[in-house]
């Protein structure tokens, strides 16, 4: 084992969309691009899985770039901020609600009590922390999607979990939490993470893909 158990899981999951990768590569080919930058294969294809990405690139008829080629780069291939218009994010990061409980006005959350509740609310303990690339600086600085609602990560992100202020939303143990999705569809995206962490999209997504449980989806 050490392998992911059945859902819901005790660690966050990075869902890699073959469809998004293939579409991003095909769209580039449609713009006359015939090759890919070798750097897109670095670090297990920026955490997306080198074998999958090689397969997708070959399927789109793209070859490794020669030095002066106009080549497909990582931002477009992986659908990151700074990539071509219309490129879709290939990585989606979700966690699981482990428990939900009351938080009273004035009570602190997590190490150093860096968050204190301004009024009575409810908080969810969610799988995913800085060891899976949910950067510690995202505490009190980023929001996640639970059901239909966006809710803030409150207090310090811990190594393997974080706390989300869910207010009176209908959220319970086992529910899915979206850390990173498709910003074009109103889901949390990397832009917010980049602002909060002062890190690049490439390193953010790579750390997530290499450390979270990884699943390939169509």
């Amino acid at each position: 084992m050490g392998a992911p158990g059945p859902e819901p899981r005790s660690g966050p999951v990075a869902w890699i969309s073959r469809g998004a990768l293939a579409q991003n590569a095909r769209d580039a080919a449609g713009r006359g691009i015939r090759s890919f930058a070798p750097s897109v294969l670095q670090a297990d294809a920026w955490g997306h899985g080198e074998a999958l990405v090689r397969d997708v690139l070959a399927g789109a008829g793209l070859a490794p770039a020669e030095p002066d080629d106009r080549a497909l780069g990582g931002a477009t291939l992986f659908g990151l901020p700074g990539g071509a218009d219309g490129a879709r994010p290939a990585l989606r990061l979700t966690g699981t609600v482990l428990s939900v409980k009351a938080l009273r006005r004035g009570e602190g959350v997590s190490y150093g009590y860096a968050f204190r509740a301004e009024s009575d609310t409810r908080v969810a303990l969610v799988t995913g922390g800085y060891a899976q690339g949910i950067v510690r600086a995202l505490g009190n600085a980023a929001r996640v999607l639970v059901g239909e609602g966006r809710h803030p990560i409150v207090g310090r992100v811990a190594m393997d979990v974080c706390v989300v202020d869910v207010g009176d939303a209908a959220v319970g143990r086992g529910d899915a939490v979206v850390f990173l999705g498709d910003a074009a569809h109103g889901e949390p995206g990397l832009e917010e993470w980049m602002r909060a962490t002062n890190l690049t999209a490439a390193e953010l997504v790579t750390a997530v893909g290499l450390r979270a449980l990884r699943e390939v989806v169509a």
Partner: protein
Amino acid sequence: MTARLHVDLGALARNIDRVRTVVAPAELMLVVKDDAYGHGLAPVVTAAARAGVRWFGAFDVHTGAAVRRTVGPDARVFSWIAASPDDIAVAVAERLDLGIGDAALLEEAAAVARDAGRPARVHLKIDSGLHRNGVRPEDWPAFAARAAQLVADAAIDVVGVWSHIAEASDDEDDLARAAYDLAVEQARAAGLTPEVRHLAASAASFARAEFRYDMVRVGAFCYGIRSAGGPAAAELGLEPVARLEADVVAVDGDGVTVGMGALEGLPSSLAGRASVGTPAGPRRLLALGERMRVEGWADAAPGDRVSVYGPGGDGEGTATDLAEVIGTIGEEIAVRVSPLVPRVYAGE
């Protein structure tokens, strides 16, 4: 990419000895979550067991099961996250100690244990103020009473009561400890007989004797990672276990290029703000992208070793020194190091 993480298992064993000496007679639980803070689970667990560690802290049950396979049946392995009944089944099958900080999870654990025909061994968690995992104080007496009933039904064994402090201030930690003491008292009043009380992690286990109880859960200090804003490792009698290093791959102008970059897990926000160790001592980290640019030195040559963080032999700072530059903690620097960076072991 020329990076590798050099892990000194001798230093690990010395740190473990040091921690055990400081916290005695309390027991040490060595925390090995997240691939032993990036140092490598199996080598760390093996070395620690050889150094006499009897308790391991493993976060999730899958890591717990991996520890069990590495150390065999005698060690105690504590996991405190179970996301599903399947996770609990793994804990019961592998004879893990399971942390339970939620009434619904307690019922799940009891149901799975009944099916398995073997009681789940649990440590009940009081929320003493951190508001992550744990049962709130006002709900605790009923939770303890329910646990006592499940013990009578032979569905669970309650072997521990535990909590986790915020380390916001000594005063607030004292309040947490008072809440913890009350919870232990109420658990006993409910008829439970917890044999292992544990509250403190690294910092409090050293600084505050009254927080040690029967056992302390220590990860960072055993790896020689000091607290951000806290005393130096040497002052604590500890030494950094890991050294992250890479090779110079080109020398040009007034700098060198090093074969490691931000995709290997080193935060690019360190560029221009941190220094690294070289054969000529500390040099400024100029840029950090696909590779690293470092201020040069007189006879720099490809193949020279650059130490990004470590015990300091090349003039490098520690993981926590780097962390403080960008407002985080040494643990985050350690666990962000890519799993693709080879781990190289010494001192086995």
